């Protein structure tokens, strides 16, 4: 479903230094697979997600989604993005819209659904993430965990083929991480294709099909969660795991 080949991506920092975010990066993600990407900060994991829907642009290489080269000039990136939902670390809900409007808007603007249809879908999804009773509330009045669940419902409303989570629980207070992870686990068990950047190893162990450890823009080691917990091979992997576990 996702095929990345020899992807290079370099950032320029404000002081004009070049930082290599992805170095000759290649991977394949199958339909229905739940892939967890772990790694130290600056290892390129978020960059990889952002390059998958072209929030960041790669310098060279190729990325195919469903066989379509998304960096091809003829591709309408808006159509690609409809199929790839993204959940952000800082939620990025629309603060001037109510919870219900947040979930409904893109369905009407992008999918051209009529209002009744969009509202029905939205209410169903808000119920699914357990926050329907807050449908007329503005995001500022919600806790972080509640906001992130709304953000997940907003993405689900587009019926994306792939869902990406960019450190979706990193900005949450500890007692709220569980409620968001529960929603993510439910989605994983439904057989969705998910690419999850996280430090939550419990999530990786419970629902992931594959864990990828990245460092300095490359894959250092990958395997099942079980493999990472029992016998990681590389020194860097061991060091990283000893720090986060």
């Amino acid at each position: 479903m996702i095929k990345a080949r020899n992807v290079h991506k370099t950032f320029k920092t404000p002081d004009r230094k070049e930082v290599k975010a992805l170095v000759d990066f290649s991977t394949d993600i199958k339909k229905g697979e739940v892939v967890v990407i772990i790694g130290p900060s600056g290892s390129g994991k978020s960059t990889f997600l952002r390059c998958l829907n072209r929030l960041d642009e790669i310098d060279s290489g190729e990325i195919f989604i469903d066989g379509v080269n998304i960096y091809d000039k003829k591709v309408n990136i808006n159509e690609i993005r409809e199929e790839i939902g993204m959940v952000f670390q800082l939620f990025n809900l629309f603060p001037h819209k109510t919870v219900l409007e947040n979930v409904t808007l893109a369905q009407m603007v992008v999918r051209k659904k009529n209002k009744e249809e969009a509202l029905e879908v939205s209410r169903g999804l808000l119920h699914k993430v357990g926050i329907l009773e807050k449908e007329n509330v503005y995001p500022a009045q919600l806790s972080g965990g509640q906001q992130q669940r709304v953000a997940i419902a907003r993405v689900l409303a587009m019926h994306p083929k792939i869902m990406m989570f960019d450190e979706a629980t990193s900005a949450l207070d500890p007692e709220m991480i569980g409620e968001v992870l529960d929603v993510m686990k439910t989605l994983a068990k439904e057989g969705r294709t998910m690419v999850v950047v996280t430090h939550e190893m419990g999530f990786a162990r419970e629902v992931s099909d594959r864990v990828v450890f990245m460092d300095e823009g490359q894959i250092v080691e990958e395997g099942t969660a079980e493999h990472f917990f029992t016998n990681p091979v590389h020194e860097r992997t061991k060091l990283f795991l000893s720090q986060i576990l």
Partner: protein
Amino acid sequence: MTFNKRSLITLGVLAIVTFAVYYFFSRRGITYIWHWERIPEMLFYYGGKSAEDAVPRVRMGILMIGFVLTLKISIASIFFAIIIGTIVGIARLSHEPVTRALSLGYVELIRNTPLLVQIYIIYFFVGSMLRLSAFAAGTAALSIFAGAYVGEIVRAGIQSIHKGQMEASRSLGMSYAEAMRHIILPQAFKRIIPPLAGQFISLVKDSSLVSVIALADLMFQGQQAVARTYHAFEIYFTIAFLYLVMTFTLSMATQYIERRLAISD
């Protein structure tokens, strides 16, 4: 708000200063005979207008006619300034260098030349080529002038919105234009209401400059009335008050809008 000892001291100082100013001017002894009784008929009067239209009824006086024209030109200019400013504000942030340079050139050119000169140029040069009426030329000049300032305010407003808002919109499949329209601009406009209000208040006051192209606005009609009656003090005080009515209403209106939009905070 509660009155305390400090409020009393402030009021006391204010009273002393007021009395001192009054005393100073009363000793200068200008002999001016006030004719405030002539002002009401310049606002409204009852009677016939001319030999052809002699039916007596309540009619607008010279200052009120000017007031209405100032109101019209201000509203029209605010409307166009918002449109110009929004376009310029977005263009200033374009990734395309020509668009960016053009919008910057417009802003710098307009902000760094006097409005009075712009009014003359647009009326006498552009206006006579395009056969613009004085009203059209005046509205154009004021809109173009205020549009440059509004453009910078809009740009600042857009830039103040967290980039995650654009990223979230785009990642849901919205185009740049859809994201601007539904997500970025509504939030930006809410944030820029206070500086916009200041800009529009300036615009109402600056509109008095169009009197130089014989547009019969409040200022122009006031000058006519002064020339005819020599009641300069009363008339200019009245004009100032009428401008204050417009700007204060505008001020109240924007504060009302600001409160209404604060519900999502």
